[in-house]
């Protein structure tokens, strides 16, 4: 039989099976099957619910049919979250049975029992569904090369999701090992559409393409999801608040939507907001009790599983959730989505919309509920972005030395590594392509011995064996390393449990420590009374109070994406030219014309500055519409530059639309505008001088220290002297700051602060744009619709350029 004939025969087997199920393969699935069967690698670009799983599972199985015996592990399927593993396994089982294979497909994750994990090592399934962390734990296992000996395929599902985190870097490193160990390897990514698709491909494959001398394939799904967007507009726009982030005032409009729809997911932006909405919904619509559930990342896994099952089986009508349900199980009955507050990005909005009508061909229905009046504009901006197919980029982590150090330890505890061979593999990745020899030896020394080889030999973690391989010396260190693999760093939280031990979830220590036993609070939709705190547990019992504190969780407030920002500026521009027909903009007419009257609405060629005085002082407001991170940096930068003209102390407030500098003395704004205030020259120096970068880096260092193994995270079967190893990341940061300021992990903290906290690249682009715009300086009498929400913000950053010593001298010790 010729190769072609055999190939078509293979595809026919799959087609026949599809046919028996009453399915017809999509063109992109056929495309993927044929590329895969020709031995190629690449990326399948398809959204969830489009049939992406079978685009790659089927050809993996078809390949299996061709061979007489397929002993050992043939394929690894990586998913970012455990919740997805079951669904993929079930799909796999169905196809395996249907195609008449005798393969096993199994899950291996943190939830897998030790016994199962052990038996998998001796008798691996043909397909293993797992996470990046579990793969690294396998790489930390003695004898891993034998386990992966027959590996032919790695599929990285939801690659767009992994790529924007250090878990993506874990994946790059694992692949760099597999590429060398398994010369026949095929690698496939599955990704939803992101702005930087090509980069996503480079990150996944590193420099592999060049070496294999074959081109990588992109298979695009032509399944286009239709999204129906409706903005919930308040009846009485004049009295809808100008500022706010809860949106509770529109709760009456949500109830009929829940009642009309078979089932509804209500997305909130924070866990605190989720708790409050649930509570209010129960107050306003008690008839929904038992039909509405809550789901967020701090609620225990058991309760979340129950909610997911109940939703799947249509036992409940609605779930109020956070990003915890962005990904995960296919909830076929979900008909409707409600997004409360700005989704901050187009991709997130589309992803959430896609949770409804979750099957090929179905329409998605999403409502957008604005939490303050100006936010209504975002409804129009989102529609425009989706119409133009605009999505955000995902920024990959590069040069994450913390992850690299962890990886070297991982290899050292199992099979050991030869320096030169591993360096070549590491450099073959996107993340570490630019690591130079000096950096490499620094990170290797750091991993070996704490970075100073003069240190006594007895302290070295790694030694060389007879073949020259680096291996870990101390067994206890090896055990501890295996327990701490991964890049997800937990917060300091306590387990919330009933007195009988049943877990409800976890809440940050800082919230619980402020409660006294007997006090009531709300969590997981229940009114609870704190009984006592013991070890890392907060024991509670049911309470029946209507009031009580709601926990808040630390965690970043996401900034508005630059893509969505641009659409908002576009919508405002089109309002000024009178060309706009959007229902959102028309509904806002009253407020926008008031803004126009009192101040101005900027076109895309203009930049608006408002300057006004009131009881609080002199307010300087600017509206770049670039997201709060950029505004924070720009606010600090401008107050520094203004402070050079005249000594001033500012407080800075910001939201996603603009920022405010507040001073107690007049601000020389006209004079400042003549000095090229928005220049990008000298930007980095000015940022370093103005922003408290050390403070930001210190925060970033917490995760880095943990990933690099600097934080001792406890040990099962406690050792006596364990408490002598306690420290905090702040203390560690200070040690590096004082004694090893060139340490790569320490410097990484500053780099991460610049890239992810200050969004330096975006700040630069924004400044460039503003310096080309026409500046409109207005002096409104009172706060405008644009300015008001910022002026009432209580979370203010203060800035001062004085020396630390002088600052301390003026500080006071406060005696209660």
């Amino acid at each position, binding site marked *: 039989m010729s190769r072609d004939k055999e190939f078509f025969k293979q595809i026919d087997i799959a087609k026949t099976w599809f046919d028996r199920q009453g399915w017809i393969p999509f063109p992109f699935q056929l495309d993927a099957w044929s590329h895969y069967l020709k031995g190629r690698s690449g990326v399948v670009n398809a959204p969830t619910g489009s049939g992406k799983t079978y685009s790659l599972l089927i050809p993996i199985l078809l390949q299996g049919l061709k061979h007489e015996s397929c002993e050992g592990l043939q394929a690894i399927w990586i998913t970012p979250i455990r919740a997805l593993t079951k669904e993929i396994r079930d799909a796999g089982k169905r196809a395996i049975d249907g195609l008449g294979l005798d393969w096993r497909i199994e899950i291996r994750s943190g939830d897998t029992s030790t016994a199962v994990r052990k038996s998998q090592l001796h008798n691996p399934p043909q397909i293993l569904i797992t996470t990046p962390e579990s793969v690294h734990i396998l790489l930390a296992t003695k004898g891993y090369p034998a386990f992966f000996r027959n590996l032919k395929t790695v599929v990285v599902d939801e690659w767009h999701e992994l790529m924007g985190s250090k878990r993506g870097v874990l994946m790059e490193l694992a692949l760099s090992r597999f590429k060398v160990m398994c010369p026949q390897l095929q690698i496939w990514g599955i990704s939803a559409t992101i702005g930087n698709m090509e980069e996503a491909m480079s990150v996944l494959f590193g420099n592999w393409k060049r070496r294999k001398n074959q081109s990588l394939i992109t298979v695009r799904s032509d399944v286009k999801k239709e999204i129906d967007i409706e903005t919930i507009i308040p009846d009485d726009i004049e009295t809808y608040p100008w500022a706010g982030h809860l949106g509770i005032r529109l709760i009456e409009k949500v109830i009929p939507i829940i009642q009309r729809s078979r089932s509804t997911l209500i997305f909130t932006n924070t866990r605190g907001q989720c708790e409050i909405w649930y509570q209010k919904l129960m107050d306003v619509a008690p008839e929904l009790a038992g039909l509405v559930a809550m789901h967020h990342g701090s609620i225990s896994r058991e309760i979340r599983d129950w909610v997911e099952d109940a939703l799947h089986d249509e036992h409940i009508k609605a779930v109020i959730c956070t990003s915890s349900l962005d990904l995960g199980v296919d909830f076929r009955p979900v008909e409707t989505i409600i997004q409360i507050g700005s989704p901050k990005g187009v991709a997130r909005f589309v992803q959430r919309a896609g949770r409804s009508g979750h099957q090929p061909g179905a329409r998605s229905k999403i409502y957008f509920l604005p939490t303050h009046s100006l936010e209504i504009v975002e409804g129009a901006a989102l529609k425009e972005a989706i119409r133009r197919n605009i999505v955000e980029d995902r920024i990959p982590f590069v040069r994450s030395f913390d992850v690299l150090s962890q990886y070297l330890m991982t290899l050292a505890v199992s099979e050991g590594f030869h320096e030169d061979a591993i360096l070549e593999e590491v450099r073959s990745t996107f993340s570490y392509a630019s690591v130079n020899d000096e950096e490499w030896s620094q990170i290797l020394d750091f991993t070996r011995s*704490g970075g100073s080889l003069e240190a006594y030999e007895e*302290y070295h973690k790694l030694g060389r064996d007879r073949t020259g391989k680096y291996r870990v010396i101390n067994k206890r260190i090896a055990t*501890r390393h295996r327990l701490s693999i991964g890049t997800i760093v937990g917060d300091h939280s306590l387990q919330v449990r009933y007195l009988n031990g049943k877990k409800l979830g976890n809440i940050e220590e800082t919230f619980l420590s402020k409660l006294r036993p007997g006090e009531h609070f709300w969590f997981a939709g229940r009114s609870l009374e704190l009984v006592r705190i013991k070890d890392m547990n907060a024991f509670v019992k049911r309470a029946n109070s209507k009031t009580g504190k709601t926990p808040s969780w630390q965690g970043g407030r996401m900034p508005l994406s630059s893509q969505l920002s641009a659409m908002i500026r576009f919508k405002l521009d089109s309002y000024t030219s009178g060309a706009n027909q959007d229902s959102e903009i028309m509904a806002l007419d009253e407020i926008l014309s008031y803004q126009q009257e009192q101040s101005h609405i900027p076109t895309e060629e203009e930049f608006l500055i408002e300057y006004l005085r009131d009881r609080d002082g002199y307010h300087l407001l600017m509206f770049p519409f670039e997201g709060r991170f950029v505004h924070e940096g720009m606010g600090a930068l401008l107050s520094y530059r203004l402070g050079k003209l005249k000594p001033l102390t500012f407080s800075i407030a910001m939201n996603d639309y603009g920022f405010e500098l507040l001073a107690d003395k007049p601000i020389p704004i006209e004079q400042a505008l003549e000095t090229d205030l928005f220049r990008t020259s000298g930007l980095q120096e000015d940022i370093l001088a103005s922003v408290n970068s050390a403070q930001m880096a210190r925060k970033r260092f917490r995760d880095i220290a943990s990933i690099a193994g600097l934080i001792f995270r406890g040990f099962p079967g406690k050792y006596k002297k364990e408490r*002598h*190893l306690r420290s905090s990341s702040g203390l560690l940061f200070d040690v590096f700051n004082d004694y090893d300021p060139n340490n790569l992990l320490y410097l990484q903290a500053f780099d991460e602060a610049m890239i992810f906290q200050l969004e330096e690249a975006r700040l630069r682009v924004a400044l460039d744009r503003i310096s080309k715009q026409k500046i409109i300086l207005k002096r409104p009498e009172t706060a405008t619709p644009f300015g008001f929400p910022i002026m009432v913000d209580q979370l203010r950053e*203060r800035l*001062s350029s004085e020396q630390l010593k002088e600052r*301390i001298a003026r500080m006071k*010790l406060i*005696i209660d």
Partner: protein
Amino acid sequence: MLDVIEITVARELLVLHPYRAVYWPKNNSLMVTDLHLGKIQHFIKAGISLPSHASMDNFERLSSTLLQFQPERLLILGDLFHSDYNSDWRVFSELRQTFAAVQFDLILGNHDSLDSKLYADNKIDVYENLKIGPFLLTHKPLEGSADYNIAGHLHPGVKLYGQSRQSITLPCFYFGSRQAILPAFGTFTGVYKLKPEKEDRVIVISSDHLIDVTPEEA
């Protein structure tokens, strides 16, 4: 030379040094506490990579204050060594020999778990606590002592508040009406926030400077 601050406690003049040491001229002795020597090495030995030369700073500051004040006696208020024996003790032994003429007295702290032979070999006298002049020196702060108590153990620090919601936490010397708590001498030791009361004297340490932040009479 770094600026010092002089302070009178229980009618005795004490000299506070920014290296976190107290010189008592009348008794010609130098007081330090919570050196936690060997802590960095202890971490490194457990596989936690830290800059090992960070521990040298402890010895440099200790030598330099001993040289500056030339005391007859060094009073260590406990937690001299952080944990199990490691190479830092050898460095400390060398320092001990360099200052062989000085009397070294150690009040045992909760961390001091080394073999007592090591103290004897290095001519360090060991005490539970020490009563000298008007002072009772202990490791942990003592409640209700008749004498003025000078202690360590807590690693005291205070949080200072500035205008515009600024704040900073710094290690400090703390002098109450019946008790003083000295700052931890060792690097990599952290601080525990104290809540001072009226009439307490608080002197904070910001790198190499001492700043008296005692609240003024209202």
